[in-house]
């Protein structure tokens, strides 16, 4: 049995994660203590992240469209299925009867209506996209791609074993004979040249870039990112390229090997230090209320301020 029932953790060293996705790598790089709460202890803040929920639904709706299109459905019909997904996925069923309630968001930019609007507008804008989905060697369309592979990064505490990298990509696309991986993001911020500068470097995009070349064994030229600026009354889109040279890919991978070695060290010691320079990032860490308590009483606050929720990179989509 893996640690806490999480299949991404080692059987031999209970608190050692051996399979990593961009989310867990990101938590660890950001703050080992945050990583401990989220991954090792399987806790999440009580308050739902509207941005996470919106992003997951947005991805899934467009994935639904890609899925139907790749199976031969025309644009209009596939668009209706994406809209149906938006309506259906954003309600909570109450009990076993017909009762339900909608997903409630107090964010004027990210709610049920702006989700449906953003999906419809995206599909209107890119209805006749020049980017075509790649057909994989096994004949299947390269959409909804989950990947998992053994690296050559050794696990210091486990003789002869290496770490696994895993994740989930939206699509591999082709244009003018070149292949790209495509991902989608939403933001409330205005779209400009800085929008794409934020992704160089970027842990998630670097993992996708590195993995695309490893897993599908196709020469991936670049990444393409479709970013949606979601406002209360509009959604704007902008498409940009993410470029990594072979040397940049190698650098990211070497850096990762150092981080994973450090993660193995912390797991062995059973201690993940706090990075108090990250507490104010991204509007404030959701664990800040917990970390602000004294270490002698923090365990008692854990249940009050967080809920149990296991994040298993080998089972769930871990990034948006």
């Amino acid at each position, binding site marked *: 049995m893996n640690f806490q029932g999480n299949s991404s953790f080692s059987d031999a060293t209970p608190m050692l994660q051996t399979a990593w996705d961009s989310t867990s790598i990101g938590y660890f790089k950001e703050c080992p203590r945050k990583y401990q709460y989220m991954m090792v202890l399987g806790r999440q803040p009580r308050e739902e992240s509207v941005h996470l929920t919106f992003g997951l639904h947005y991805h899934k709706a467009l994935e639904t469209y890609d899925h139907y299109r790749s199976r031969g459905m025309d644009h209009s019909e596939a*668009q209706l299925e994406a809209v*149906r997904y938006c*309506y259906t996925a954003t*309600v909570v069923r109450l009990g076993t009867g*017909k009762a339900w309630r909608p997903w409630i968001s107090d964010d004027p930019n990210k709610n049920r209506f702006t989700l449906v609007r953003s999906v*419809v507008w995206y599909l209107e804008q890119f209805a*006749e996209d020049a980017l075509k989905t790649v057909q994989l060697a096994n004949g299947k369309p390269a959409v909804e791609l989950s990947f998992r592979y053994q690296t050559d990064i050794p696990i210091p505490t486990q003789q002869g074993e290496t770490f696994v990298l895993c994740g989930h990509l939206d699509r591999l696309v082709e244009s003018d004979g070149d292949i790209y991986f495509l991902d989608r993001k939403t933001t409330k911020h205005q779209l400009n040249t800085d929008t794409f500068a934020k992704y160089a470097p970027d842990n998630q995009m670097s993992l996708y870039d590195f993995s695309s070349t490893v897993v599908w064994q196709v020469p991936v030229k670049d990444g393409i990112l479709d970013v949606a600026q979601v406002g209360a009354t*509009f959604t704007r889109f902008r498409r*940009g*390229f993410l470029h990594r040279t072979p040397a940049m890919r190698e650098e990211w991978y070497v850096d990762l090997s150092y981080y994973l070695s450090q993660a193995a060290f912390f797991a062995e010691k059973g201690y993940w230090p706090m990075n108090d320079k990250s507490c104010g990032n991204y509007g404030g860490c959701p664990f800040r209320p917990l970390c602000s308590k004294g270490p002698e009483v923090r365990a008692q606050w854990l249940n009050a301020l967080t809920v149990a929720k296991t994040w298993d990179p080998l089972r769930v989509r871990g990034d948006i």
Partner: protein
Amino acid sequence: MTDLATILNAPTSPLDEARPESLEDLFNKDPLDLTKQDLERTVSYLRHARETFLREDAAKVPRGAKKTLTPVKVALDKTVTVNDLDID
């Protein structure tokens, strides 16, 4: 492809002002009971809302900038090639 003249000369339609309220009955409906017509109505409303937004957005003149309608054409031109993409 919708050309610029068609957009700019389009008669005003009640659908142009699609707001959340205009689809309120659909958002209040159990999603399991939504019909294909309901979904088509959603797309139709939002498509018109998008065209209105693009028209109004194009009409906005940034301070100190010369008025141009190019963004509307670019945004509605669904046939793009890789050379048309923004490379940042």
